[in-house]
């Protein structure tokens, strides 16, 4: 085994006999682009709503529920899709989330949420993970669309203005603290903070 690795390394580290340095550099560069592009394209593909609701667990549960909310239809016609709320925009966070999401795909393959009942049973756990994530990143995904800086309190309802000019403005609370269940039905909330 060790001998094999060593032989491989020797081959790799020897200067190339057949290809010019220029070819190798440019070729490597192009291969790099192709690989990187392909990787990101694959990533982009998994970053669309049709992909997210490709499995019936997501389509029959969370997507059906989203359809009745303001983030699906509203007077201005601006929509939030699954990745808008669930996939961070920066690259490192995105990859980290994808790795975490594969665990959810894993959950599908092994049938832990393949019926509505099993999904509902697991819902508190899944939701808690999302709440923790939103809490940790200060509800970054919400803020990608709803920027506090540009919120005009005078155009909001008094209840909203009251809450936003206190808890939100002084940073003690973030969107998810007050807006749980904005896109889906909630699990049993006994014991969850603020309920």
């Amino acid at each position, binding site marked *: 085994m060790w001998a094999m690795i060593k032989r491989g390394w020797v081959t790799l580290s020897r200067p190339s006999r057949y290809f010019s340095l220029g070819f190798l550099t440019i070729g490597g560069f192009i291969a790099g682009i192709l690989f990187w592009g392909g990787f990101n394209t694959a990533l982009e593909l998994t970053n669309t709503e049709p992909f997210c609701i490709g499995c019936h667990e997501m389509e029959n549960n969370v997507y059906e529920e989203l359809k009745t909310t303001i983030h699906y239809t509203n007077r201005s016609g601006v929509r939030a899709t699954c990745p808008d709320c669930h996939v961070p925009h920066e690259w490192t966070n995105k990859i980290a989330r994808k790795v975490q999401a594969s665990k959810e795909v894993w959950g599908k393959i092994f049938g832990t949420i393949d019926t509505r009942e099993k999904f509902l049973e697991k819902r508190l756990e899944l939701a808690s993970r999302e709440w923790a994530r939103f809490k940790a990143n200060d509800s970054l995904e919400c803020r990608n669309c709803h920027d506090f800086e540009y919120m005009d309190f005078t155009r909001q*309802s*008094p209840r909203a203005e009251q809450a936003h000019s206190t808890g939100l403005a002084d940073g003690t609370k973030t969107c998810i603290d007050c807006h749980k*269940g904005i896109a889906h039905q909630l699990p*049993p*909330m006994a014991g969850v903070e603020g*309920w």
Partner: protein
Amino acid sequence: MIRPLTTLTLALAFTSTLALAQNIDAMRGDYPIAEEPPAPRMEQTENTDIRRKRNYPMQPPTIPHKIDGYQVDLNTNRCLSCHSRRRTEASQAPMVSVTHYMDRDGNFLAEVSPRRYFCSQCHVAQFPGNPLVENTFEDVDDIIARTSAAQ
């Protein structure tokens, strides 16, 4: 003998229905039964956050804010996340009154009584529509004022 009489009655009934059809029902508007009137516009719920007066002391107050998408079911009660005893400090909402904690025998429970759990059974949001039927309700204070003025 019976035959002509029935025919007459039927004919009479028919003409009177025709006459009625000209003026069926104010709520339907001037649309014959067989025709579907166009649906009225959906109104916007009032969301002014200004508490309204109650028409009598036992009236469940109407809701001065919108309640779209507020989940009230076995899992959770969105209303109580603001209106329950322990949440009013954070939400600055009025607490549900003590009657909501009473069972039908008048015992005080620790939690909101099951018969008061589904809030929209009694409390409703409002929209500024034109009432289809005239409301002849009179405030008791007005009645007292009127009768004492008459005396």
